[in-house]
């Protein structure tokens, strides 16, 4: 299956990435090659074969519902790019509303 630049732009949007035009071109070519390599799988008959998403037999792993002390807010905020009064500061979203976020 050939992949087109429009599709690459759509995938980039889903992935929250943006590329200059020349990189879109390069990515289209490279993704095309990788997808071609992956299409080798079409020759395998997988009728009735279950899908493996994890090699562990566990389904859900639960722990006791006991409250424990979390990491202190001051420590967590050490790595935040911008904060104010104990809150994480982000740029305003007013200009195009929440739909753009």
């Amino acid at each position, binding site marked *: 299956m050939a992949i087109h630049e429009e599709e690459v732009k759509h995938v980039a949007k889903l992935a*929250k990435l943006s590329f200059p035009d020349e990189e879109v071109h390069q990515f289209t070519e490279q993704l095309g090659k*990788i997808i071609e*390599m992956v299409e080798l*799988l079409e020759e395998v008959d997988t009728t009735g074969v*279950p*899908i493996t998403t994890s090699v*562990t037999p566990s389904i859900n792993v639960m722990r006791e519902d006991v409250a424990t002390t979390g990491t202190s807010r001051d420590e967590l905020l050490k790595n935040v*790019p911008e904060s104010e009064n104990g809150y994480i500061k982000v740029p305003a979203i007013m200009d195009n509303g929440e739909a753009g976020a």
Partner: protein
Amino acid sequence: MAKLNELNLTELHDLLVSKEITATDLTEETFAQIKEKDPKIEAFLALNEEKALEMAKAIDLKGITTENPLAGIPIGIKDNIVTKDLRTTAASKILYNFDPVYDATVMEKLYQSDMIPVGKLNMDEFAMGGSTETSYFKKTKNAWDQTKVPGGSSGGSAAAVASGQIPVSLGSDTGGSIRQPAAFNGIVGLKPTYGRVSRFGLIAFSSSLDQIGPLTRNVKDNALVLNAISGLDERDGTSAGVSVPDFTAGLTGDIKGMKIGIPKEYMGEGVQPEVRKAIEKAVATFKELGATVDEVSLPHSKYGVAVYYIIASSEASSNLQRFDGIRYGYRSKNVQNLEDVYINSRSEGFGLEVKRRIMLGTFSLSSGYYDAYFKKAGQVRTLIKQDFEQVFNDYDLIIGPATPSVAFGLGEISDPVTMYMNDILTIPVNLAGVPGMSIPCGFGKDHLPVGLQIIGKPFDEATMYKAAYAFEQATDYHKEKPAILGGK
């Protein structure tokens, strides 16, 4: 006294117990080695000098006894394992300023063993790559030839050990990232069974494949470190509640009657003739030691790379969504609104290989393509896993080459698909969740090391170590040194 930086863990332990050296001496000597050798190798991204010396002094004060075989031993840590207050970047610009507020479980276990973390090691960005060339910060060099790659993604972890800077390191292996650099640098690297070692605090790339494991200069050292880092961890839901044996217990050199299979698919045309020759010689050694070695088949292994790139990229595209410039890491200055923060921080913060995999993963999981790509890959993964189960019904171990070639030149491979194919022999092991290791078994072109891959049944690392140790005792490959350590 022999040079401290060339001794194995048991020899160092004996010197520490008999007080011929102190942990402080050993730590100081380790930093001296790093300062002398690392300008040529460029394996370290951060050093932990002040704290390491403090720890060493405290350990000396407490005293080292025979019951603590790892006390006072310096260790290097791959930079995707989070270390409290010690910068952890995963070799990415997006985490260039990240200082974790907690330790990974493996770090807690190392501290319980009184091991001394001396620094963080370079890698491919987010462990995506096979040569350590995708690191944002620097390109690590192969310990044997500084014009060659150290392999990847644990290239820093392998080259630092092989060049005599540190005796042991931790790496992580998603598709061969411990075994391939171990092979390229002539050392021992083990990827444990999925679930054997906690992944809590390992920056996630592909959650169903990633495992942390040790890289060392010999088999016993490796087993000692696996003893220390294994076990159930309630903070990792995929960690296994399987008992942890003493992995050094079976290191007797006796493997008479052991049944070993060698897959015909692992010895095909894609494998360099010199690599194949070294493996054939290894087969002869195992036979001399009293094991039986038969040709077996893993018919779906040729689909491993395709399956891996769909599954690993899909999981990566999901795991890497957390890097959005909000709570930690790089935030773009070029923003007008919140959407810009996400898109610009990610676009400026991630390197090309990481973006390529996020794109492939997002594509495979997107509406209309899920069945043809992700689901199909998951089904073929089942067949790959069944191939291993089939062989392990009759055999104790599987052996073959760890890599199709010896280390290639820095900058030599630029095509992603060619780079991906380099992992063709290691990837099936991760997909099946079984343990795999690479040990030195000879030399190929330009006297570069060749790695023998040993694959075991789930949670049977003990048998792998037993066979690896017997092979090591019967051969001298692990004794050869690279030029940086005075070898030819």
